[in-house]
């Protein structure tokens, strides 16, 4: 059967099980959109900016575990989606992005809306293709999905020139794909796994350090079994949140720069670190030279380049987390006995003491300004029974969400970890909502970052994606302000936003619902009201402007040297400046509400 390139595109996506694509048209992809318009199997969500399309595809992928799909036009369409590709590359999100290209005869001629899409995307994709012949299109799409979703997942770009989208070819979709130079390793080395099991049996102070790799591998069940079997505490990275139940007694919560006290202390003083699908990022290791000084390190990762990149590893295991853990559990089931529990009792006593002495804490006065942590905590308590999907932007609010929103299951947590992309949260939440129309999807945002992709509210309203955005509004780039307070003597260079738009009226202007909680007492009611609405909602919560996020390990600092509260000189300074009381401007915001 002969089809044109655009029909081949659609048929190929259907064969890959794609249901939804996030797209924005333009000159060179008009044929593809014309064909999309004439079919019903693929839902097209028209975004207002290509960055939004990219992040939506990411949110879709993180929530479903399947590849997200975006379609953009040439030139500016492509350059706009680059941020999302770079974000997906850093966080290993399976994504297939299709970009339009000028006709093959014009490539290289500086044609209208031409860009070197392959050159632009090369450093921020796992792989990219330029399709020069319509006869290669189906095979290329098959390979693109295969590369994006196997091994360490990542974004793949397929660049389709206009003439290729119009030319005819015989359509045969390949059943399988084999690339001679690409063969990811899934099975871990058996001898190494045995070594790891032996080390685990002997360890007195072991700790599990689990990252996003375990989430994509679907290793939650295996991890739970391993932790419960061996009674080893579990630290999660920002990307790993949800892979282990946050309320489980073995959960230490998040580790790293703003990780919990016990998570970081347990890491520092352990004698065996079992890293699973985590990459020893600088936000976790702090000062590399003093990272886990007493520990032997086991590292399970599907990507060999992650192993020994930053940190020396004693027992490297290249393989899929789920497969490796399954095998490891099998060995451990046969060997674990009561002795380990006895051996590790002092370790657990120490951990419990850390937990007791330094829990996550904040002070919420009944008549004082709303504390951002309190908002996240209440949101968590009010929604946890509904198993929500939670997205965040980047900054203080992200860290508070990571600390206080204790997810029970994986694929509920959408956040930008590696690249730290402000503006990620809202479109990512929409992508997840598009995949699961009936689920509750929350977006915890800051007033700075929500404005970076605000335009997508139009998409949310039109495409009926009832995402609930909770804006922790301190009229600052809060994390920047925090660093300025701690390391730049309180000079707020370009971090004070002074004024933010009236988010309630902004939501209404888009045809969404806007709500505001100005007092602590209003918070629960407003949050409940927001959750009950079947429309996109912005909940604006003016919060205490000068709240800082703790614990904090200063960049390049050591994991056991956390800052736990505002240093005395900062407290004194803020007191002198009258900070901490509700300022007249704060009152204004509250009153105009």
């Amino acid at each position, binding site marked *: 059967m002969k089809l044109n390139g655009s029909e081949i595109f659609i048929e190929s996506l259907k064969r890959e099980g794609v249901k939804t694509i996030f797209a924005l048209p333009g000159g060179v992809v008009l044929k593809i959109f014309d064909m999309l318009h004439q079919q019903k199997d693929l839902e097209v969500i028209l975004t207002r900016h290509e960055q939004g399309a990219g992040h939506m595809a990411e949110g879709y992928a993180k929530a479903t575990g399947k590849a997200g799909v975006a379609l953009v036009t040439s030139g500016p369409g492509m350059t706009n989606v680059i941020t999302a590709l770079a974000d997906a590359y850093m966080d290993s999100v399976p994504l297939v992005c299709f970009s339009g290209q000028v006709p093959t005869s014009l490539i290289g001629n500086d044609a209208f809306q031409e860009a070197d899409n392959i050159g632009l995307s*090369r*450093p921020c994709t796992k792989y990219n293709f330029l399709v020069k012949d319509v006869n290669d299109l189906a095979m290329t799409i098959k390979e693109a999905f295969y590369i994006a979703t196997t091994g360490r997942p990542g974004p793949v770009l397929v660049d389709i020139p206009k003439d290729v989208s119009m030319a005819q070819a015989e359509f045969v979709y390949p059943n399988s794909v084999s*690339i001679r*130079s690409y063969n990811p390793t899934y099975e871990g080395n058996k001898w190494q796994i045995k070594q790891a099991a032996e080390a685990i049996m002997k360890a007195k102070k072991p700790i599990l350090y689990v990252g996003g790799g375990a989430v994509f591998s679907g290793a939650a069940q295996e991890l739970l079994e391993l932790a419960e079997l061996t009674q080893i505490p579990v630290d999660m990275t920002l990307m790993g949140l949800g892979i282990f139940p946050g309320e489980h007694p073995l959960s230490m919560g998040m580790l790293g720069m703003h990780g919990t006290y016990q998570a970081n202390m347990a890491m520092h003083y352990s004698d065996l670190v079992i890293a699973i699908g985590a990459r020893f990022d600088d936000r976790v290791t702090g000062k590399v030279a003093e990272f886990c000084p007493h520990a032997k390190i086991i590292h399970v990762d599907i990507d060999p*380049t992650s192993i*020994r*990149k930053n940190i020396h590893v004693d027992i490297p295991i290249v393989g899929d987390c789920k497969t490796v853990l399954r095998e490891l559990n099998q060995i451990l089931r046969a060997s674990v006995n009561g002795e380990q529990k006895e051996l590790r009792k002092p370790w657990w006593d120490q951990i419990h003491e850390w937990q007791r002495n330094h829990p996550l804490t904040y002070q919420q006065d009944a008549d004082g300004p709303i504390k951002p942590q309190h908002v996240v905590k209440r949101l968590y308590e009010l929604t946890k029974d509904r198993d929500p999907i939670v997205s965040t932007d980047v900054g203080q609010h992200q860290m508070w969400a990571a600390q206080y929103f204790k997810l029970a299951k994986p694929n509920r947590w959408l956040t930008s970890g590696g690249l730290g992309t402000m503006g990620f949260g809202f479109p990512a939440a929409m992508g997840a909502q598009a995949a699961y129309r009936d689920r509750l999807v929350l977006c915890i945002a800051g007033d700075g970052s929500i404005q970076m992709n605000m335009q997508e509210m139009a998409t949310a309203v039109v495409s009926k994606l009832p995402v609930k955005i909770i804006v922790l509004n301190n009229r600052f780039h809060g994390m920047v302000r925090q660093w300025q307070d701690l390391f730049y003597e309180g000079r707020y260079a370009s971090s004070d936003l002074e004024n933010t738009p009236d988010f309630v009226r902004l939501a209404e202007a888009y045809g969404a619902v806007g709500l505001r909680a100005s007092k602590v007492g209003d918070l629960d009611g407003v949050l409940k009201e927001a959750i009950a609405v079947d429309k996109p909602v912005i909940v604006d919560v003016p919060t205490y402007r000068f709240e800082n996020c703790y614990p904090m390990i200063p960049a390049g600092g050591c994991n056991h040297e956390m800052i736990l509260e505002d240093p005395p000189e900062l407290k004194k300074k803020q007191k002198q400046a009258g900070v901490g009381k509700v300022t007249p401007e704060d009152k204004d915001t509250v009153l105009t509400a």
Partner: protein
Amino acid sequence: MEHIIAVTVENKFGVLSRVAGLFSGRGFNIESLSVAPTLDPSMSQMIIVTSGDDRIIEQIVKQLNKLIDVIKVVDLNESEFVSRETALIKVHTKAEDRAEALRIADIFRANIIDSTPATYTIEVTGDPKKIEAIINLLQPLGIKELTRTGRVAVAREPIRASVVQPKKVARE
């Protein structure tokens, strides 16, 4: 420490920029690079001369392996290898220098591959030290142009006992 890495890649457009982009993006050095098709025309062989400590070389090898178009990566420094480089050197030769230029070429077993009344073009092959040496000697005559290939290298074939000994089958 200097390492020579042999990389077998798919022979398609854009592969060289993926490899070069990997080196520049991650801050690795390329001291020299040579690329040419292999016996199988669907593949190319790259010989990359780079340097770094063991950890960096390990990363370079792993990162190269991770590139989708890379088929095989061998760090030649892990065993014995031989390497050669070729240079083409165009020297000014005044009448009184021509004999000297020929003598130098002779010492280094180099060939004169082009000649004009005022220049010789000398082709020389060897390890980098030999190339440096002939350049130094020719410099006083005046080098007009110089082009070097970058190094190519291949692992030495290990001499196995079984190869040296006559086959048992033959004796029976």
